[in-house]
């Protein structure tokens, strides 16, 4: 296992290629740009294609076409670019295509966008929020595998810190069982056979007029309901006996975890919970972790987004308070003063005060 010093963007791109990603299209925008740069540098030599798309809208369209032929394909951007991609993301989900999206956000303000989706209609896509480069390498490969198994887009929610921090990682292939033949793919080979295919989001079939949206979309709903059961992932520490449970996701969770461990070492009864999947949110696990705690503190770098999902999980069994907030650097890229271990520890301690119960 050779570990190399790789920035998050590069490690994730290498992981994607290990997973068999053969097509990428993207448009530069901070902090996603390096993902495009690394794909542009590495994909052609590996027999794949990277197109410098002229807009985010066209980037996701190109990935869509590649996916439809059965290839593993990806795209990505940051929040503003993802905003442009929403119609296509909804349709790609409803066409049951396995797109992987590198959502490299400017901080954590895209939580709603990633988990609720800004596209039309009923659709869901799992969102993985890696805490560090090592986890990002694993989750990237997991995303490609599960996207094919479920025939659904998977989103990787990263940020400026993850993209641009270099860590020592071993980018090794994740062992996954083989996936079935993609008989649904429009490869051109069934043209003229009487059994040609139509990759679409409306339930259109050959030889029959009209569309069948209700039955088709209800089947998709059932699939998403099943994904919500099988796919939640989380990380938790010291939740059995805590007066304060701190909930955080992504890069910021690394600071929360560090603060909780320090405070625990100093005798405070603090616990830590990190959703790894932002959708499906690990509701049951969080509800269980929050049992017995006096207060839940949500540390997120935005105006309050994940806190809604936390409140739904906790369902009033303990008060839920925000201890994060909007925080950014002067360029607006999300590298704000909140990303600081002392700052975070102070906020956690502050939330801890007043929760200690009489023995």
């Amino acid at each position: 296992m050779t570990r190399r010093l790789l920035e998050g963007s590069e490690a994730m791109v290498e992981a994607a290629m290990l997973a068999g990603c053969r097509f990428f299209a993207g448009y530069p925008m901070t902090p996603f740009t390096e993902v495009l740069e690394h794909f542009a540098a590495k994909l052609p030599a590996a027999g794949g294609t990277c197109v410098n798309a002229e807009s985010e809208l066209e980037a996701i369209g190109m990935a869509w076409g590649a996916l439809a032929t059965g290839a593993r394909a990806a795209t990505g951007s940051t929040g503003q670019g993802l905003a442009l991609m929403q119609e296509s993301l909804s349709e790609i989900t409803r066409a049951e295509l396995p797109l992987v999206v590198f959502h490299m956000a400017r901080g954590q303000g895209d939580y709603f966008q990633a988990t609720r989706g800004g596209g039309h209609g009923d659709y869901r896509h799992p969102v993985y929020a890696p805490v560090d480069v090592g986890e990002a390498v694993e989750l990237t490969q997991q995303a490609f595998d599960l996207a094919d198994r479920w025939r659904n887009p998977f989103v990787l929610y990263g940020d400026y810190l993850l993209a641009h921090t270099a860590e020592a990682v071993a980018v090794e292939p994740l062992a996954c069982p083989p996936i079935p033949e993609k008989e649904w793919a429009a490869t051109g080979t069934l043209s003229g056979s009487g059994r040609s295919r139509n990759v679409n989001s409306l339930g259109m079939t050959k030889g029959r007029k009209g569309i069948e949206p209700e039955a088709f979309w209800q089947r998709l709903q059932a699939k998403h309901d099943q994904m919500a059961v099988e796919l939640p992932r989380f990380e938790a520490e010291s939740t059995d006996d805590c007066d304060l449970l701190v909930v955080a996701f992504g890069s910021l969770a690394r600071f929360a975890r560090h603060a909780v461990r320090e405070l625990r070492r100093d005798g405070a009864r603090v616990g830590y919970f990190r959703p790894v999947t932002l959708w499906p949110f690990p509701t049951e696990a969080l509800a269980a972790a929050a049992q017995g705690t006096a207060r839940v503190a949500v540390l997120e770098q935005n105006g309050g987004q994940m806190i809604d999902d936390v409140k739904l999980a906790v369902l009033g069994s303990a008060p839920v308070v925000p201890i994060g907030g909007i925080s950014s650097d002067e360029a607006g890229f999300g590298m704000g003063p909140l990303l600081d271990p002392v700052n975070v520890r102070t906020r956690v301690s502050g939330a801890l005060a007043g929760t200690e119960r009489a023995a």
Partner: protein
Amino acid sequence: MSSDEVLSTDAPPERAARKTGSFLPRLQLGADHDLCPGCGEPVALRILLEAIEAVGCAENSIGVIGIGCYTALTPLMDVDLVQALHGRAPSLATGAKRMKPETLLFTLQGDGDMVNEGLQEVLHTAARGERVTCILLNNGVFGETGGHMTSTTVIGQRTKNTLEGRDANYHGHPILIGDLLAQLDGTVYAARGAVYDAPSVARTQVMLRRAFEAQLSGAGFSFVEILTMCPTGWFVPTAEGPDYLSKVMGSVHVTGELKRDGQFTPTRELPPPEALG
């Protein structure tokens, strides 16, 4: 003439004869569709499917379909298809062709789809010289929503949202997308055909074949615009559709070959339609 002279046409002839034309092209699964009487789009579908067969790609082609009335024809097409969003087909075609470079790749889009919603998509795809053929069914309206103005609607044309006729001052001017595409170095073949009578259909058959041959040669992007009748959208009786097409639409969107063998001929310099050389 008396009705005695009407000949029987409910079965093939008993007298020795050879069939020179079938109901359906090989790649068409049926004839049942609900498009309007006199619609030009199914006419274009026939010659498109015939052209795919003519260039030897009946068992090796992929179509990316836009959103419009013609979308309803997809159940009849025995071609592997991908359904795109309004305007987006050229991007999907790009990704598909990059993964399947040996497969004939075409898009099928209406004017609202390609020239309104998807203008940048088709321009960029052409500029990149993607080895795909984008096919435009141009009837000067958004047919599927009931007949509304698009970027190709001609000045004076009545539509549901230009009931007094398109006014250049208020609604602007139509776009001749073929000219925009033909000027790009990535475009190796561009032509504008029509289906208002048998000779125009025959000329458009040639255009489709040449476009597909350009793609298969690997030279770059190819484009065929096909003017189609939409009597419903044009507020004209069905039988007047072909005349409206050739005279009203066709006087602005003049038919002919815009780019061939490196030569760009803008619309205003096109010769009158005649048998293609």
